[in-house]
């Protein structure tokens, strides 16, 4: 979101000429300590980051396994009993299991609803981030490689878009497009591609002037091959960092839009939708319907951010010890 862009703003000049470290794709020569192994060991140096990786792994696993590790499919009407509605955490459900996190207004077990909601949140966040990366990466790479007028037009559009907060862009788009999972993904992609385009263009510009690119082009390789097989792998480090953090943003943004009622419809109950559903019960003291899905969202976002921060530290050549 905006925070990200602004954070970089004061030292943008310092950021621009960042040289990405040669990543694991290139150097495979060192037998004992491959760059990938060094990367892993450096990454795991921080306990916090290690914890974040495990938490994130557990979250992803739990959301994949949701149908098998929850007592109830919250969207199978046959399994939901309206009599179980708004039970506080730890209550015994009508059909013989304990609702550790309570139940929502329609009698769904919140624990089950959260895991199923996590699935939707993650799918929306990750797929929009991947599409946005693909689009932004290609545009940024092309701009840096072709240069000239194409570059100046593309970068003007990017700068223009980045002068608006991503949340606002996404909100505008859903205001125009309406609800639905595909529309949300589209809105998130449009709101975020520019970050990737800027990142990739920045590092591709540095790479383009290096000898190996010259060597590749004097070998007569095609432009596409030089761009994607030679320049791109060397621009991956910053892209991975930005990608991780933007994925967290995408998940938070989707939750925000869904909470406002302009994101996903009730038929696709992501965490944001669950929180929104609980909002009406909150003033009467039934805090759990909103709070538990919120905590799940929080843990997800914070652990992705922690992983992203550590990636930044490890992949940043200026901080090499």
């Amino acid at each position, binding site marked *: 979101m905006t*925070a990200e862009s602004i954070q970089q703003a004061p030292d943008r000049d310092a950021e621009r000429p960042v040289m990405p470290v040669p990543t694991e794709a290139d150097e495979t020569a060192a037998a004992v300590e491959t760059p990938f192994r060094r990367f892993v060991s450096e990454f795991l140096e921080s306990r916090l980051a290690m914890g974040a990786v495990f938490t994130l792994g557990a979250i992803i696993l739990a959301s994949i396994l949701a149908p098998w590790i929850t007592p109830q499919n919250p969207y199978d009407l046959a399994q939901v009993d309206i009599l179980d509605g708004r039970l506080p955490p730890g209550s015994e459900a009508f059909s013989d299991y304990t609702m550790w996190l309570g139940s929502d207004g329609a009698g769904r077990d919140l624990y089950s609803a959260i895991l199923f909601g996590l699935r939707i949140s993650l799918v929306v966040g990750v797929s929009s981030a991947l599409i946005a990366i693909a689009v932004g990466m290609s545009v940024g790479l092309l701009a840096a490689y072709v240069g000239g007028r194409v570059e100046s037009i593309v970068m003007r559009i990017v700068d223009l878009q980045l*002068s608006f907060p991503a949340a606002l862009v996404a909100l505008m788009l859903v205001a125009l497009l309406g609800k639905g999972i595909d529309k949300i993904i589209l809105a998130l992609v449009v709101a975020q591609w520019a970050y990737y385009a800027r990142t990739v263009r920045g590092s591709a510009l540095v790479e383009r002037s290096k000898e190996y690119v010259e060597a590749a082009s004097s070998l007569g390789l095609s432009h596409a091959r030089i761009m994607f097989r030679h320049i791109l792998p060397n621009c991956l480090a910053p892209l991975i960092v930005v990608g991780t953090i933007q994925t967290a943003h995408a998940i938070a943004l989707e*939750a925000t839009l869904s909470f406002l009622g302009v994101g996903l419809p009730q038929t696709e109950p992501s965490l944001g939708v669950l929180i929104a559903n609980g909002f009406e019960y909150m*003033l009467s003291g039934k805090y759990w319907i909103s709070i538990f899905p919120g905590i799940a969202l*929080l843990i997800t976002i914070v652990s992705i951010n922690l992983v992203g921060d550590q990636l930044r530290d490890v992949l940043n050549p200026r901080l090499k010890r």
Partner: protein
Amino acid sequence: MIRRLLQSAIVILAMSAIVFFGVNVVGDPVHMLINPEADQEDIEATIRALGLDRPISEQYWFFLKGIWSGDFGKSFIFGQPALQLILQRMPATMELAFAALFLAIFIGIPLGLYAGLKPESKASRGIMAVSILGFSLPTFWVGLVMIIVFAVELGWLPSTGRGDTATFLGMTSSFFTLDGLAHLCLPAFNLALLKISLVIRLTRAGTREAVHQDYIKFARAKGLSDRRIIGVHLLKNILIPVVTVLGLEFGSLIAFSVVTETIFAWPGMGKLLIESILVLDRPVIVAYLMIIVALFVVINLVVDIVYSLLDPRVRLRDQGA
């Protein structure tokens, strides 16, 4: 300067095209603009009255002419001109945004200074941890927790509405009544949280850089008191980036107030937007989007100008690059 103005005008024009075609091409304007209970004859009459049977380019021209004279059409729900409706709600939003800005400055800068001057102390680490949280937590979630803690559990502060307003020096605002201030507390803090974190980070980074500069060492050698060094020499230099960023962020405060206003039932224009999206009140949506775009373009323009006045190096760098 003139180029910059021209550029802004082009941006607004481009956005008007996007918004217009977004409303009229992506969706079916007949469905969106006409009361669904109207019969066939009425529908055809309205289509003709709205000019929907004309070619699209002509329609766009009419739309532009309408904007020029401030006519965005009438709201379907309120029956008032859309522009008037939004302008009525604007003071409440502005009030919230200014209150948040105030909090960001008067909480963010002192904490950031402290964290920058004593980077190793426990309190500083605490401040930084909180600011990281402030970045990662979605605004709407923090708002919910604040309502639960301060309004539902403790019952200290009201959580919905704007409270009493009073007129002072020709301005009607809730700044001037106790009840109004109490209502302002939670929403303003909620909106400010992200900006407080941002200001803390910026101030801290600036401070850490500045304490090693020669002018600080010189001031110290001259035997000036700490208070004077920090309050005058240091603060003056770190304020430039902070002020700029806050200027730019003011726009995003207004954009994010959509979320805060919805949670705290604050009767501003952001809440109006969400309500309009939910009932498909298109003229209001279009008017809101155009106003926000214009606002952003103006803010960016003003910040650019102010920045080049504050810091002459900016202009030099532009020419060099």
